[in-house]
């Protein structure tokens, strides 16, 4: 997201250790500590930056406007009244405070669904990376195949299955499918192969540690960056999940934020329905705040996780 772009862009280039011979500068070979500058690239980057930040800016500005203000003012500037606080309180109290309920639902789906998916991915990835057993290649093929299948394509068959066992319209219908993250498993598998030296595990075993203890005390800390990465991926996927809850849930009491905000937005499209665009906008802003917070606080783990194994020490 925007966080990573921001840091790389603003990180100052390390000052050169010694003054370079000025005469020969134009044809210097590229080095990361002394990047060559290009006006064209800078402009392009700036354009992309503006392009990706504008919607966010619009969202922040619009959240300060009332329903009237939204339609009378220019999109990228403030209205004459700042209604942000009123919008926030209204978002949390409108329709008996159902927004809070949706927020808690989403948190539950994320904690149980994404948390569970991460746990399963870590356990599975570790096992696949560090233990040999018959059928491993088959598992590999299945996992790679599963990564290639978009979850959207699986939604309808999943619905039919859950409908058969009578779990549709319950939170389980959202949680159980969220527990499976083939990509997370694959990532953990690759990560664990690189991050845990087999020698270290052997040493632990020689010292008399049980397999469980080896996993928890030796492997798990080494897997932390990868775990955080997978956790972030699954959290974002679950937090933003729309299509699966859409077909599974009918009862607004179990909606996640995505469905709830959509329902509010659609209210404006019906006879007698109340148009609450200001609440939809404010609700959307509030919805991304936890995600942004998660990214910022987990960023350093995430980045070190992504680059792990890319350089041979």
């Amino acid at each position, binding site marked *: 997201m925007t966080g990573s772009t921001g840091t790389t862009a603003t990180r100052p280039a390390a000052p050169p250790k010694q003054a370079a011979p000025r005469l020969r500068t134009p044809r210097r070979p590229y080095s990361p500590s002394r990047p060559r500058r290009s006006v064209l690239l800078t402009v392009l980057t700036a354009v992309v930056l503006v392009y990706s930040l504008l919607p966010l800016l619009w969202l922040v500005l619009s959240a300060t406007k009332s329903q*009237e203000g939204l339609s*009378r003012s220019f999109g990228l500037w403030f209205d004459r009244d700042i209604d942000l606080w009123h919008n926030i309180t209204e978002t949390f109290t409108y329709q008996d405070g159902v927004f809070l309920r949706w927020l808690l639902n989403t948190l539950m789906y994320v904690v149980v669904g994404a948390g569970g998916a991460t746990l399963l991915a870590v356990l599975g990835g570790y096992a696949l990376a560090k233990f040999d057993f018959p059928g491993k290649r088959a598992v590999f093929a299945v996992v790679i195949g599963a990564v290639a299948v978009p979850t959207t394509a699986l939604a309808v068959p999943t619905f039919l299955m859950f409908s058969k066992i009578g779990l549709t319209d319950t939170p389980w219908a959202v949680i159980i499918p969220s527990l499976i993250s083939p990509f997370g498993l694959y990532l953990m598998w690759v990560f664990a192969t690189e991050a845990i030296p087999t020698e270290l595990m052997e040493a632990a075993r020689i010292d008399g540690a049980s397999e469980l203890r080896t996993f928890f005390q030796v492997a798990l800390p080494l897997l932390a960056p990868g775990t955080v990465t997978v956790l972030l991926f699954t959290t974002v996927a679950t937090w933003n999940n729309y299509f699966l809850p859409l077909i599974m849930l009918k009862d607004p009491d179990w909606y996640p934020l995505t469905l709830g905000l959509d329902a509010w937005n659609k209210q*404006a499209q019906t*006879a007698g*329905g*109340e148009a609450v*665009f200001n609440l939809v906008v404010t609700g959307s802003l509030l919805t991304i705040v936890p995600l942004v917070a998660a990214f910022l606080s987990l960023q350093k783990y995430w980045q070190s996780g992504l680059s792990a194994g890319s350089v041979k020490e």
Partner: protein
Amino acid sequence: MPKHSRRLLRGIGLVAALALGATACGGSDDDGSSDKKVGSADISAALKKGGTVTVWAWDPTVKTVAAQFEKKYPNVTVKVVNAGTGNDQYKALTNAISAKKGVPDVAQIEYYAIGQYALTKGVTDLKAYGAGKLDGTYSPGPWNSVQSGGGIYGLPMDSGPMALFYNKKVFDKYKIAVPTTWEEYVEAGRTLHKANPKAYITSDVGDAGLTTSLLWQAGSRPYKVDGTKVGIDFSDAGAKKYTDTWQQLIDEKLVAPVTGWTDDWYKGLGDGTIATLPTGAWMPGNFTTGVKNASGDWRVAPMPQWTKGENKSAENGGSSLAMPSLAKNKELAYAFTEFTAAGAGVQTRIDGGAFPATTKDLNSRKFQDTEFPYFGGQKANKIFADSAKAVPSDWKYLPYQVYANSIFNDTVGKAYISGTKLTAGLTSWQDASVKYGNEQGFTVEK
């Protein structure tokens, strides 16, 4: 079993009508309805015994009515679920009916959609519950819409007799008279757009509901329905009146290319760039909450006529409450339906801003004398009620209108974006509708 799961799969598909069509031709082994008579004694006994009624409705006033109902019958719990609006809800309902699981006891269904549920016996014939005695309770348009083949498949909850909403401030500013015929309407559009190139007489990018309503008003009767025998024909004189007039608006670019119900549309209604809106009588509520900043600017006028001196109107939108055949608590469900659509719930819904379909309320002094502060104190209900009376009741929708409407923009909608003529658009809509109907087991003739 495979037949069952195939039907299930279809039901999940993006077209709600599919599964219903399949049921129509595949014989109805899942027909949960029984034609046993249910007397008022049975219903009172059920009310006393109590239970839970699940209602799928997106109309916000239904919740208020539910609370009122629970207060009157303490043993009954009414669970109102907003399972989506319009099409979304029909998809969900069709899926639930196909899966035979999670079917609500009562569902809000718009008039244009009720036919397909009636034909496939997806909803119960309420005659067995005594709905026949409500004959004469409702204005003709809605009452006719809930009936099919001698059965009553829903009770009209609200209606949408049409009127012309216009921005008086804009009309005054450019000294435009309120049009009384569609010819004058086009002329007003020209004057307005000339005076202010940013302003348009209305917005339209192709809307099936508006087109069918205008055809209805123009005297066109494109759809003929007799059981599974269907006729579709967009070539009558009424249709010609509509296409001739509307084609001018499109050709001269007098209608704003703004999609209805978007925030842009609300914005246009607020800032005067969309100057009129021919639509249903339920619109005031949407004006009040969605276009607050134009309060006092707008007024209501009777619909422009296709022939000078006539007084004809049409319905636009409006919905009924129906009982799915697979509903469990039918006595209670009917009690709630009648309470909401014909009993004490009607007044509650009017107070909540809904527009009734009951003639008694439409004609009441109190209702007609209601002043709308939003419309500068105008007694708009009088115009709406007169419009309700002027709706010809012989209009029919297709038994698969939900599907037909879903392909409107691929056919008629082309007239708005390319050089295709409206007439050609209607013809291709007709062809596509005929083709689909035949595929679904109807006998469709042009």
